[in-house]
């Protein structure tokens, strides 16, 4: 059975905006480690944090986050 995972384009958006992880973290009001783990897909952010990150880039949340179907293969 396939499992849904969360993918993101956070790193691309951040680099495009010319921000470091620490600067983005400060804009959103979280730790740099949180930004790092979200970028790496280690940490799944809450809806509030996902929307805050999207707002920081002026993009809709779907532009940053998307679902990946993982069939375990």
């Amino acid at each position, binding site marked *: 059975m396939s499992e849904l995972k969360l993918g993101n384009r956070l790193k691309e958006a951040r680099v495009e905006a010319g921000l*470091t*992880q*620490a600067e983005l973290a400060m804009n959103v*009001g*979280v730790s740099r*480690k*949180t930004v790092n783990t979200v970028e790496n897909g280690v*940490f799944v952010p809450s809806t509030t944090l996902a929307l805050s990150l999207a707002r920081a880039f002026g993009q809709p949340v779907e532009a940053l986050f998307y679902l990946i179907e993982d069939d375990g293969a």
Partner: protein
Amino acid sequence: MVDDEVLALARRVDARRKVALVILLFGLIAVGAGLSQFSPGDPKRFSPLATELTIGGGVAVVVISFIVMLMSRTPIEARSGRVAMMRAEGMRAKRNTAFMLMPLSLGLMLMGVIRSLNKTMAGGMVEHIEVFEVCAFIIFLVTFVAILSGQGLDKWAKPVLDDELSRQIRAKALGLGYLVLAVGLAGLVATSLFDRTLTIDLIPVVAAVGVGASSLRLFWLERAAGGGDAGEA
């Protein structure tokens, strides 16, 4: 003031507060040593004058260092914005080192605590130093649990030290500690059927292993969450 100046000022205030905290702890130790003289049983004790001086001196040190801590107010500019974030990130790294060292300090105290409990179970008299050792172990254990569960964080540091990731990591670490404690307590119940002295001896071991497992898990998870562009900030 520019950010670097605010940061330097905040570091000086933090250093003063830390020194006052260490002196305060020494004061508390003196008060504890004095108060332990009133525990019954042990005929060896300080003279009344020495006891009064120890408690009085300890209380004076505690009061003075507490006043110094209250007066060491961090500048308001260092409690918000970029400087607050930088200070909180620095604090996070120090807290992680503390998580790594917690099991070591509990382990060192365990030897004295087990010896004291073992002696009491064998019918020996409780000495003042043993009351002191056991109380110190309990205080450290409770303090470590409070730190691990994120109690007492400054409001300005919460966006970094109490954000979503931190709370998730803490929950995982405390979950492991709870599991270790539950298994340990089940083991103690089983052991009590056969050997009560051993059961009493093992109580502080189970408590220390439970808290130690949480702190090491927290250290490991915090470390694993690092990396990225930390050097660029």
